[in-house]
């Protein structure tokens, strides 16, 4: 891996200037490296982060046929990584015009990394640097503790897809109201309404009394207010303390819960494990936004490499070369889903919508087709709108909010179905539906979505950890359950239980044998399967798994 040469770097700096003029915002510094195939072999298991910690599984061919992307949310072959400065990777024999295109694409990604709020938690530090110090810390631990470090890494990685990413984000964005104390919040929001259940007039009276005492003395007023409360409701003080304690204990995610409450990890001699778990958890959180913004991120980068390239005066004469490569990147496949093409079209579509003022209540409630078509408020706000979208949306909200019938129709999109043609012995792909709702559902179903598994604190008694899988229509991969639970049991230091849903095995209906001379009954739509679900409880105790139907 070596830095790109000065000539190419100069071209890139020129790209940055043009991108800034177009409105993109990103940090000045960036690093570009030439990579060879050998470099990629080393980089890809480390998700393109050169300084990521070492782990033996990286050296082994890993079987991923079951849920490749559910297991590995990081993109192993990304061209630019979200570090400070951002680092991007290049083939060593790209011609200049191609590098210009790639640079613009890379700048699009960097802009997205540094402005999209789903990446907020990665803004304040350089992951590359942290990863390096983590790697050294793990190496040092390994020299002291040997293989046990790898066991802890393994078991932690087993549940690192359950990290509370959204919890983390909501903590960052929930701005505490600085003027009002927690005690006041509790008194008015919870105590008066839920516990004391006072009527409205009494509530307002209390509110007025509070305002009066604050106005009287802004520093000591609150204390004065509560002194009377304590007299009238002597239990209030202890209730508030209890509330505070409960709030503090609220688990963010399984890993954090284990770190705080595991007896095994609490022991003096096992303190080092906490550090290992912390490192794995942080790394997992770092990669979370990437997979949750794949369509937007690639769409945004493609939108900008196309827009900026076409306006770049330096590369005149290579339009045809560009067109060929660009079509390969952004053409909508006849069958299949290309995130570059889909995201880019959605951004163009939204820009036009906003430019014409179609993202408005007025337009959305217009029923007349002719008027809808000709609607143009000439707002001039198209760019502003898509910049706003790139800041505030993730794939889920992006698709959910903006894939509508107009978009699907304009781009001739459809859901492709697959059925068996018995005569020709081929799978046929056919146009199944052109409805926006179906298309959106199909997109939603193909997006990354880890299961929601939480600790049930009420049922977690003594030392047995009780996990609940909130069922969303799909069972867990059964053969992965034992080893995952084994790992949790180790980290927890006691029995672990998991409540989930599974399909009850039903014998297959006997098929009619084919009889010579009589044609097979043609069934176009397969009969809906009747599924019986049952709640099951897995228990891992002393490294032995048992399963009970509930």
């Amino acid at each position: 891996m070596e830095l790109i040469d000065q000539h190419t770097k100069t071209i890139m700096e020129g790209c940055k200037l043009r991108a800034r003029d177009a409105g993109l915002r990103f940090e000045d510094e960036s690093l570009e490296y030439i990579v060879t195939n050998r470099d990629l072999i080393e980089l890809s298991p480390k998700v393109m982060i050169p300084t990521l910690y070492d782990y033996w599984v990286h050296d082994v061919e890993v079987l991923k046929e079951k849920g490749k992307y559910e297991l590995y949310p990081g993109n192993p072959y990304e061209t630019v990584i979200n570090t400070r400065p951002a680092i991007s990777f290049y083939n060593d024999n790209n011609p200049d015009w191609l590098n210009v295109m790639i640079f613009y694409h890379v700048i699009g990604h960097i802009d997205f990394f540094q402005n999209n709020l789903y990446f907020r938690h990665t803004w304040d530090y350089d992951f590359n640097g942290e990863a390096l110090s983590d790697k050294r810390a793990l190496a040092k631990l390994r020299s002291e503790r040997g293989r046990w470090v790898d066991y802890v890494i393994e078991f932690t990685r087993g549940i690192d897809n359950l990290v509370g990413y959204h919890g983390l984000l909501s903590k960052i964005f929930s701005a505490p109201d600085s003027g009002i104390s927690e005690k006041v919040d509790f008194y008015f929001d919870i105590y008066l309404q839920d516990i004391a259940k006072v009527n409205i007039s009494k509530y307002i009276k209390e509110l007025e009394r509070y305002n009066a005492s604050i106005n009287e003395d802004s520093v000591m007023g609150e204390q004065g207010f509560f002194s009377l409360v304590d007299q009238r409701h002597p239990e209030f003080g202890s209730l508030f303390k209890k509330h505070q304690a409960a709030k503090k204990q609220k688990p963010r995610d399984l890993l954090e819960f284990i770190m705080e409450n595991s007896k095994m990890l609490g022991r003096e001699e096992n303190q080092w494990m906490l550090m290992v778990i912390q490192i794995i958890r942080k790394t997992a959180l770092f990669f979370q936004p990437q997979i949750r913004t794949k369509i937007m991120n690639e769409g945004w980068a493609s939108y900008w490499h196309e827009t900026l390239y076409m306006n770049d005066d330096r590369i005149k004469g290579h339009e045809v070369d560009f067109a060929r490569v660009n079509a390969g990147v952004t053409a909508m496949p006849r069958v299949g889903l290309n995130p570059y093409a889909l995201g880019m079209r959605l951004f163009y579509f939204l820009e036009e919508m906003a430019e014409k003022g179609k993202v408005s209540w007025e337009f959305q409630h217009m029923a007349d087709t002719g008027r809808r078509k000709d609607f143009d408020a000439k707002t001039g706000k198209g760019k502003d709108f898509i910049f706003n979208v790139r800041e505030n949306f993730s794939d889920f909200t992006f698709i959910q909010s903006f894939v509508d019938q107009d978009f699907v129709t304009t781009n001739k999109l459809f859901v492709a179905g697959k059925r068996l043609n018995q005569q020709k012995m081929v799978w046929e792909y056919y146009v199944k539906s052109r409805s926006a709702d179906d298309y959106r559902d199909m997109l939603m179903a193909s997006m990354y979505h880890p299961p929601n598994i939480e600790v049930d604190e009420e049922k977690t008694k003594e030392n047995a950890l009780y996990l609940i899988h909130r069922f969303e229509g799909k069972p867990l991969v059964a053969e992965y359950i034992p080893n995952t639970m084994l790992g949790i049991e180790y980290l927890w230091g006691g029995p672990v239980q998991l409540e989930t849903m599974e399909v009850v095995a039903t014998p297959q209906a006997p098929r009619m044998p084919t009889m010579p001379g009589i044609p097979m009954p043609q069934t176009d739509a397969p009969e809906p399967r009747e599924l019986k679900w049952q709640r099951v409880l897995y228990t891992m105790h002393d490294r032995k798994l048992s399963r009970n139907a509930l």
Partner: protein
Amino acid sequence: MHSKLKKTFNTLKDSGLTPEQEEKILLELNDDRTHDMPVIGGGMAVVTTDEGEIRLLNIYEYHDLMVLQAMAQPKGSYVSHIRSIDELLEKDRQREKDGFPRKIRVGKMIKPGKAGKGKVVVVPTTVEEKFIHDPNFAEQEEEQGQGGSGDGEEGEVIGEQPVRDPDQAGEGGPGQGEGGQHEMESSAYDLGKILTEQFELPNLQDKGKKRSLTRYTYDMTDRNRGSGQVLDKKATLREIVETNIHLGNIPDLDDIDPSGFIISPRDRIYRILSKEKDFESQAVVFFLRDYSGSMAGKATELVVTQHVLIYSWLLYQYANQVESRFILHDTEAKEVEDFYTYYNSRVAGGTQVYSAYEMVNRIVKTENLAADCNIYVFHGTDGDDWDTEGKKAIPALKEMIGYASRVGVTIAEHAGSSKNNTEVERYLKKSGLLEEFPKLVRLDTINESTDEPRLIEGIKRLIS
């Protein structure tokens, strides 16, 4: 076909069947599946549409290096895996001592292509288990739809993908080079070495002596003066020099003038075809696989995996001098030419074990294999047999014992069935062959939850 099966069934019924057996047989009889090759699914699928061929990819399979810079997904080289395997396995053994299940799997096939084309690579693999939603689960039988774009009415067919498509088999995304592949033979040999050394599979006690060398191949190795097919230039020149020395034509050895050489017709040395003795391969292994309808799922996977391991081990033991024959059977047996077909043919039809045994006997007899080779027979089944008492299977097996060095039967029991109570196991035990010839016949019963270490354990039982 079906009428023939019906007839078999009726004969069986006449001779008396329990209702349970009858139900089992009927289930297989009324099954209209065929022995297809598998569908290539997921990211490997290539769909031929009206706009050309498209490799189906999902959203997350696209990445910048591929689409922008045309850089293939790099693959770690196989060699580096093998170099680290000792270390990995040592680690894995330590895992077991520490009380955790082993995690390294060997003998997993990564690239099952048609023999000669895509090759089979055997590498150490592992899997990182997590709680994830089952991606293959669908509420209804029809799969979740794909994305698509372009013209076409609803219902219109826009592309197709062959159900049998062995040539397209391969792993990974588009633009992936074909480099770095290894032939089954070489990697299986390595696997055999690993199995022997790391998993402590025994070495064969007596591999038999080299038998008579009856086969010949023809090669251009013999020399002939004056005439022949190919002029051997070096030998000819030597002759010419010799002749000229005798003639006194080379007075000064430091100053030779070749233009003055005299060449006799007999100086020309040619190479001609000759008969060469060839070393007979020392072992012939028959792999028999039950591919009846009841073998669906895990049972087949287990049997085939175990056969790969046994094959590798024998290959190592006999230093590659192994010939292997692959036989599939349902109610009838059929020999297939390559491992790919053996490995991939789908299950369907009924079960008659003796058909395979008789086929082995027939092959051995007609090719006179018993005289020259050590013969091994490994049979994998789920233990169902329409011939519930082994009336035909046992005599065929007895005949086989007469010449075979080892017959190993693996029964992969279905979950839910009662233990050690399959038809094949019952009649094998009843026949007393297992006790009578403990060195020749071995039985290993496994169940559907069997993992790789247990399979290897099973091999020890079959071959030790």
